[in-house]
């Protein structure tokens, strides 16, 4: 029982990170209707910025918390710049072309990171103390607790932003009904740009939080991206709370499956995410929280 609980808890810890990646994907999807395949690589690039700011040997050696803040701020600007320069010309293009463009970004950002920073695997310090809290037979590491805490705070802040601030409401309006928003004086293009910035910043935060566990390298976010997709699909792809809940479900499922099904083990963990994506899309394409799209023919 303790082992089971332990696996569930570890699953929740990982799942919140998947949820954060999913949230980043959902924000862009809701704002621009695009599935951003470059999301993981953008987060990876920002994590390298954090590493450069915080590392004592190769970087500036700032405190890790400052480094993360710098990476997140960079992410915000980076996301806005990408939207303005690369994405905006394809705002009204068909899905296939949008997909190809974000895949082009994927290639370019991945290689650019290897060239600017390094292709080697690097270590990034954790902002949380090592050690763990022992409750009964279960141990909660401070790392896990810290990750869950930070991401919950982030989720609450986002809820405030989208629920109560002028900017957040304008952003929602711009994505839900661009025409009316324009009539009300909302700069729709700028709102989409802010949406990309916000999404990239969330990705940067997720990258920095996952880095102590998976290390920093150009490929660090690629498996996380698939888990993020699984979480987003499970949550309905257009629901922010759904993304986080979906992340936790994916995390727990993955921990339990790889713990109890020996044929899957650690090497085939990704297959769990793949199976989840497939199952959800076949059985309930709108996910747990999504709306059923009604199409007028």
């Amino acid at each position, binding site marked *: 029982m303790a082992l089971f609980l332990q696996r569930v808890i570890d699953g929740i810890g990982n799942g919140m990170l998947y949820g954060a990646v999913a949230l980043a994907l959902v924000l862009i999807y809701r704002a621009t209707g695009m599935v951003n395949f470059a999301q993981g690589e953008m987060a990876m690039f920002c994590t390298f910025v954090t590493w450069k700011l915080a590392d004592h040997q190769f970087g500036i050696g700032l405190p890790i918390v400052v480094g993360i803040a710098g990476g997140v701020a960079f992410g915000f600007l980076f996301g806005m710049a990408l939207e303005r320069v690369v994405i905006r010309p394809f705002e009204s293009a068909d899905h296939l072309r949008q997909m190809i*463009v974000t895949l*082009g*970004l*994927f290639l*370019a950002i991945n290689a650019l990171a*290897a060239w600017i920073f390094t*292709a080697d695997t690097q270590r990034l310090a954790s902002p949380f103390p090592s050690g763990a809290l022992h409750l009964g037979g279960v141990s909660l590491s401070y790392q896990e607790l810290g990750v869950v805490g930070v991401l919950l705070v982030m989720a609450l802040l986002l809820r405030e932003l989208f629920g109560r601030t002028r900017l957040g409401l304008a952003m929602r309006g711009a994505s839900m009904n661009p025409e009316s928003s324009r009539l009300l004086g909302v700069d729709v293009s700028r709102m989409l740009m802010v949406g990309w910035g916000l999404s990239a910043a969330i990705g940067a935060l997720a990258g920095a939080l996952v880095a102590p566990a998976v290390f920093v390298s150009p490929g660090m976010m690629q498996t996380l991206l698939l888990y993020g997709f699984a979480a987003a699909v499970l949550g309905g792809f257009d629901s922010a709370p759904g993304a986080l809940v979906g992340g936790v479900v994916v995390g727990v499922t993955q921990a339990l499956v790889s713990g109890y099904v020996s044929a899957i083990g650690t090497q085939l963990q990704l297959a769990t995410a*793949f199976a989840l994506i497939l199952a959800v899309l076949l059985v309930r*394409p709108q996910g747990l929280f999504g709306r059923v799209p009604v199409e007028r023919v």
Partner: protein
Amino acid sequence: MNKTTNRILWAVLLGALVLAPFFVGTVEISAFQKVIYLSVAVMSLNVLTGFNGQASIGHSAFMGIAAYFTALAVQSHGWSYWAALPASVLVAALVGAAAGVPALRIRGMNLALVTLGLAMVFPQLPVRFTEETGGTQGMILDESLGAPAFLAVSDVAWRYWVLLTLAVLAFWLVRNTRASRLGRSIIAIRDQPIAAHTAGVNVAATKISVFAVSAGMAGLAGWMFTVTNQFVSPSDFTVLVSINLLLGMAVGGSGTLLGPVIGAAFLHYVPDAVTATGIDPVLTPVLYGLVLILVVYFLPGGAAGGLAQLAKRFSTARKPSPPAGEPARPVSQLTSSTPNP
């Protein structure tokens, strides 16, 4: 470009390719072999995405399945390459058909997600079964596809001709299918799925068949990969390979026959050209990414589409202008779908 010149051009190109082993060295022939299997791989994606409008980031997996099937059959089970050829193509096609069934319900971006999952999971399979496949180290095949004894040709030239023949057959199949009733249904499903359905096209069956044929063709490219390299490893079939195939399709021109050849040549020769200019080869994918985005923006028809437009401009320039009073309308305003040269 009219039909006759088109045919003459294809014949000249083919003749030059057939005779190539007599004029160029082994290194170039090996390079040609790679271009050939890349052409087939890009064409397989083109069949699915370019003609039928279904997105796939999973073609590296279909290639990998056939390549690994061939490697395991030849190296561990004593099959000949020839026996592995139909079997590996069939296996890839079956997996493709299985992937095509969810594709009926899962469309657009969601299909891309599912195939992305396929592409990401596949390289982990050889690692999971390291004892049989050599894991991340990959596996080297001791046997090679040699020329039959009664033909006095080198093994390299023989392999090249085998690949060339199979590729020509595959392209010929695609060409003839496109002109058939089935081909028109496939394209109709891409452009107007609902209208195609109304006109009596069995959308579901057609989509699954296209997925299976496309995956089988990717499998053929996988078999060619193993024949060419006598080596397979998980890193040869990562998701990046799938993205490269998409790049090849976009650069060459989707929905065309010549496009995949141009795209494959681009994929094979550009990295060398980049290195030759003294730019750090690490940056090649950056160039790829930029080219991909620029092509999609400025040249949606790819190189083949651009060439066709150029040819059209030349041939219409010589014709007398239409009588005054009736303004000439460019073709692009009459049809909304992408041009199919």
